[in-house]
């Protein structure tokens, strides 16, 4: 296939799905195709998860394929590693990304390094799903974007979709991948695209082409970015919710920005980034996570290393502030279209 984003006809009819439904469909399709796929986490079984991603899966596949776990994230990841060692393909849910920390040792020291330390004797073909990001008044323990903590770990793949079509295809890829994959779900996108204008009515996914999701099996490749919005003036490198916010900023400023949706944060699609920045000569990097040592720092370094001679302006970073995510001041924290738009202008004026 020439177009890496093309979805084959075998994927079936496209029907309207929210991101939640698309993720559920990915799990359903994967569980139906491969009885080695098992799904578990806190409130994931009977109830179907606090965001309802796993709703109906226990009823359909039985409690030994989809079940509730005790509240212990190190246990959730630890049993996933053990199951993976046996030969299953576990898909573990961490209820909020903010709660992965008790499981950090199992992720960093174990899952990520199993292949390396056993010279491929043991692997961790596991997927760890977790909702991330703010925008729901969740306060500091329901809003974090910890992607940089994962991209820093050798041996982990980190993925973050921005829409239902990608969410399903990427989740199936993650499940079928033999490496451990951290699958971050921007919860503010669960029910509709979100451009950062929190004071406007929510647009449902059913109103958007990326909310039309094939019912069957298909994959969206890992390590492949997508050009979300083609443009000539400046390259915006981003992922997750900020894809929508960045595209909105481009519309509102009238700046012809090319918005690249990374989709896979690490390993990433360097070629796509380099080709675009060399073409536009300008680069703005946008993420919701805090700034210092954020993933934007790595992206900045990569662009500098590979595009220095093509750059016509300093690389801009738009991020969350270096504070815990506040509850009431959420929209002052969130890097909305105004902040992205200002950075686009700076990049153009430099």
């Amino acid at each position, binding site marked *: 296939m020439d177009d890496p984003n093309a979805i084959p006809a075998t994927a079936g009819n496209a029907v309207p799905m929210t991101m939640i439904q698309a993720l559920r469909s990915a799990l359903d399709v994967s569980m139906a195709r491969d009885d080695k796929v098992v799904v578990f986490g806190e409130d994931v079984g009977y*109830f179907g998860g606090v965001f309802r991603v796993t709703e109906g899966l226990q009823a359909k596949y039985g409690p*030994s394929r989809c079940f509730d776990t005790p509240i212990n994230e190190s246990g959730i990841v630890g049993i996933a590693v053990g199951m993976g060692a046996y030969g299953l393909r576990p898909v573990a849910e961490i209820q909020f990304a903010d709660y992965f920390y008790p499981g950090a040792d199992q992720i960093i020291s174990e899952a990520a390094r199993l292949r390396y330390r056993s010279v491929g004797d043991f692997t961790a073909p596991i997927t760890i799903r977790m909702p991330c990001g703010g925008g729901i008044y969740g306060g500091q323990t329901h809003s974090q974007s910890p992607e940089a903590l994962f991209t820093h770990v050798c041996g982990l793949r980190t993925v973050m979709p921005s829409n239902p079509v990608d969410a399903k295809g990427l989740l199936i890829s993650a499940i079928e991948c033999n490496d451990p994959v951290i699958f971050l779900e921007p919860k503010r996108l669960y029910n509709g695209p979100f451009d950062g204008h929190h004071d406007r009515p929510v647009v449902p996914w059913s109103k958007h082409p990326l909310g039309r999701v094939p019912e069957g099996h298909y994959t969206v490749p890992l390590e492949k970015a997508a050009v979300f919005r083609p443009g000539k003036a400046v390259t915006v490198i981003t992922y997750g919710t900020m894809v929508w916010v960045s595209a909105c900023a481009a519309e509102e400023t009238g700046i012809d920005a090319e918005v690249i949706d990374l989709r896979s944060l690490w390993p990433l699609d360097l070629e796509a980034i380099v080709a675009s920045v060399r073409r536009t000569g300008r680069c703005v990097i946008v993420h919701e996570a805090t700034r210092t040592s954020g993933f934007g720092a790595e992206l900045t370094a990569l662009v500098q290393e590979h595009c220095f001679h093509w750059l016509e302006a300093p690389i801009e970073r738009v991020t969350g502030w270096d504070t815990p995510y506040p509850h009431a001041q959420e929209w002052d924290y969130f890097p909305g279209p105004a902040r992205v738009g200002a950075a686009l202008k700076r990049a153009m004026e430099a």
Partner: protein
Amino acid sequence: MSRTSNALDLHVPAPHARPGDKPDFSGWSFPEPGETPKPELDASAAELRDFAYGLIRVLDFDGNAIGPWAPSIAPEALRRGLKYMLLTRAFDDRMYRAQRQGKTSFYMQSFGEEAISVAQALALNSDDMCFPSYRQQGVLIARDYPIFDMMCQIYSNARDPMRGRQLPVMYSSKKDGFFTVSGNLATQVPQAVGWAMASAIAGDTKIASGWIGDGSTAESDFHTALTFAHVYRAPVILNVVNNQWAISSFQAIAGGESTTFAARGVGCGIASLRVDGNDFLAVYAASRWAAERARGNLGPTLIEWVSYRAGAHSTSDDPSKYRPADDWQRFPLGDPIVRLKAHLIGLGEWSEAQHEQARQELEAEVAAAQKEAESHGTLLDGHIPSPATMFDDVFERMPWHLRLQRQQLGV
């Protein structure tokens, strides 16, 4: 995967009743009120083993206080306890509805569990330090923390002591012995042990009280806390509020199917009691026993309080999706307020009329506080603390990068 006749089978616990089923507590059996002896304060953890599997009860359902655990407590103190429970319930009810009206983002009630935090707060000294979970608002209320301040926190308004930073109910008050509530489960339990160790290191007389839910006992931090508490004989009470549910999962998913949560302490060599958490007198007496033990350098006590989460987990949750609707009505240990009321009436120290009057007065007090709090704004009307304050307290002194970021925000 193909299965043979000797195939292994995964056990996943399931509750007796789900939505549409009749609530079923038929398997539940308890010792009678008064049946459990009261051990000496210096009894060894080994001698106390059975207490982790039984249930200490004082009040029967006619309001009589029976047996060795019946505390000597003045009727005036009991009336205070009853009023604090009524106030907590009225407060919860109002704030739950305020969230439903969109005035804030989130709320968590302690409906049905009021006796545990209120009676323990009254059994402790006011300078003993509590490390609560998010469901111990009763401790703050019983320590006379202003409900106005609690409401301002819930509304994230101009008078919010937490300056809008924290999710509703994540209170903090050092002067009231109430450690800042964390959204991350179980972290507070080792911290309570550390605080208690510090009190011992310093030669102080204060003790600590750590709180955790049944579901959260599965977290490693809980087990870590038990080990440290035992090793250093920390002067701490470790409370497990077993309200049977952890959001949608029932207590067997937390590991309560073939054992008790109190029994976690037995393996760690900790004095461990299991107590009727809806029995105000039993809560008070067991808390006193554990506190005296801690103060006597006799070490930590783990207490499992058996209760029931009468309401939803939080305003983000719909329990009708995972449990029968009228579960709580059939819970065999009843309503803590009704039970203490019956006791006081039986003593001739209270009446239905007084109860009704107290309830109305407390509801009026809550309504007045709510009005006052709302006059300083709510999350809905956007009267929130200035975004400039968002950059404070990340460090003791603000480094250059935060000053720069505050400038960039233009506040």
